[in-house]
């Protein structure tokens, strides 16, 4: 407790040095937080993309850059329907960034009698009929103040709102659904679909279903509730690897920064540590004092880094123009991790300087003038 207070005071009396050391740590932590937030957000968005019932799976093109750019041939739907264990299969087209005044909303192209749209509960009006109508999710309707009969523009097409549905899946409630054929036309995917939603027969377990499908159609990425699809698509994998590499680099930079500054600070204050030894401080006591300084500085840096990281994540996503698919989310766990990393940096970066400080010979140092 005393050590802590004295350390705080010591840091407070060297505000510039403390700030600069902390900044080094902060940049490291900020990079990590930003990358964690972005890649975590990408993962979360992608796997929720088609959040279907527990016996359903979403099939995408495996080597697509990300799920929204997946392209599947429509012929696949027929083959799937004839696969044992599959009760139903229906194609969907996803239109991203096409809804006027709601760039984050996803428009689904679907058959109005598919098992996916059958589950919609209509709060007002009913399902669309034909190419002139659109059914709007409750979230999107609230956002745009839409009522049945209003007009919604999707990809420059003016459509009349036929009904407002609720599904319980944010991605779908914040979006809209239109006729499959119209969506194909708007997306330029004639004869193709973005994804095929599959409903398994009640007698078939998820694992069995996934195994059957992946064996028969090896080019497919299978997504679903609880299906472990760690990263979806090529860009997701790249993003996660890049994030790891950058995080390691950032950590090394942060750690070396802390060590460098702590070492400078120790060398600069050799007489101080030699004096402590001379008045009866033990080696471990002196080392603790240096470590405490390193750790405290790193924690301050971690706090600063968190702020920078959260802000930086938004900026990064904005810069990449990826805000439709990626919602940076910083969880309490991220905060905890950042603090933990801060402490670790302080310990690692402070170790060698602490050892140096504890080993100074008081006779030699104090006789210098």
């Amino acid at each position, binding site marked *: 407790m005393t050590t802590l207070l*004295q350390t705080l005071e010591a840091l407070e009396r*060297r505000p510039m040095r403390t700030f600069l050391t902390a900044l080094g740590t902060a940049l490291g932590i900020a990079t990590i937080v930003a990358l964690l937030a972005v890649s975590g957000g990408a993962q979360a968005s992608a796997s929720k993309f088609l959040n279907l019932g527990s016996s359903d799976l979403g099939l995408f093109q495996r080597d697509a850059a990300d799920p929204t750019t997946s392209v599947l041939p429509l012929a696949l739907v027929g083959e799937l329907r004839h696969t044992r264990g599959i009760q139903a299969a229906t194609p969907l087209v996803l239109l991203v960034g096409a809804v006027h005044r709601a760039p984050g909303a996803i428009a689904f192209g679907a058959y109005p009698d598919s098992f996916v749209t059958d589950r919609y509960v209509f709060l007002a009006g009913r399902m669309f009929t034909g190419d002139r109508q659109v059914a709007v999710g409750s979230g999107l309707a609230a956002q745009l103040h839409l009522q049945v009969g209003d007009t919604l523009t999707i990809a420059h097409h003016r459509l009349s709102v036929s009904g407002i549905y609720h599904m319980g899946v944010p991605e779908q409630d914040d979006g809209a659904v239109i006729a499959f054929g119209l969506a194909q036309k708007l997306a330029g995917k004639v004869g193709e679909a973005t994804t095929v939603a599959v409903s398994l027969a009640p007698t078939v377990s998820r694992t069995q279903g996934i195994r059957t499908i992946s064996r028969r159609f090896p080019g497919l990425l299978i997504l679903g509730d609880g299906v472990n699809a760690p990263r979806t698509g090529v860009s997701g994998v790249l993003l996660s690897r890049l994030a790891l590499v950058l995080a390691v680099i950032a950590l090394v930079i942060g750690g070396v920064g802390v060590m460098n500054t702590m070492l400078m600070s120790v060398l600069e204050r050799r*007489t101080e540590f030699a004096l*402590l*030894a*001379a*008045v009866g401080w033990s080696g471990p006591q002196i080392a603790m004092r240096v470590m405490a300084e390193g750790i405290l500085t790193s924690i301050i840096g971690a706090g600063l880094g968190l702020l920078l990281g959260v802000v930086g994540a938004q900026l990064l996503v904005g810069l990449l123009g990826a805000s439709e698919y990626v919602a940076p989310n910083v969880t309490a766990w991220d905060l905890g991790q950042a603090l933990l990393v801060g402490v670790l940096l302080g310990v690692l970066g402070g170790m060698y300087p602490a050892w140096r400080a504890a080993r100074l*010979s*008081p006779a030699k140092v104090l*006789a210098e003038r």
Partner: protein
Amino acid sequence: MPGSKVEVEKLTRALDGKVVLRDVSFLIEPGELVALTGPSGSGKTTLLQLLGGLDRPTSGRIMVDDIAVHALRHPTRYRREVVGFVFQLHHLLPALSAQENVELPMVAAHVPRRERHERARELLDEVGLLSRAASLPSSLSGGERQRIAIARALAGQPRLILADEPTGSLDALATERIWELLASVRQRHGSTILIASHDRGLLQHVERNLAIREGVVFEQGLDANQSDPDAETPPPSGGDPHDHAPANA
């Protein structure tokens, strides 16, 4: 707290191949106030650092009461509990207030905070600087800094106080005040005190004067007019330092 008895026997210290202290032997009785005089480079600091457990001898013995200082593997406790060191340069920590500087040895000794504050303030009062408790060293005069350093040396309630030219940079008046302070410390606490100094005024406050010339220690009279303690003369007995008897033996 009674002062320590200091017994030094055939103490030798070589630094980088150069013999800085040569076969030094002397005895200081508990509670004595002793001056250590000698020209610059004669080995005063080296001797005090050996006595204070800050350095280890090349050969020879240092007994402080029943502690074999020359053989201490872990001198931390000895430094903390037995010795109070006043350095040639005050070596106060610039970032800490006067009171915090005085508390440093007690922090190492895990003295509870309240008691630490109390004792530090008593000591500051004793050196006449209670009103400057919160001041940083940079805002204190040279004499005030040395008095803080003396208060810090007293914090561990030492039985042996070693002061290395504590008045090096002070004027005559401030110097005299330091000598009076150290003499009163001896009066009040009964500590054994050894002071290295060039200042001839010190001799009026001490009962013994150990002189050191080129690493050899011998007893010298207190008559200030007898000889210049800083003169570059060889020891009175001259010749081989092994010849003359240990001081006070």
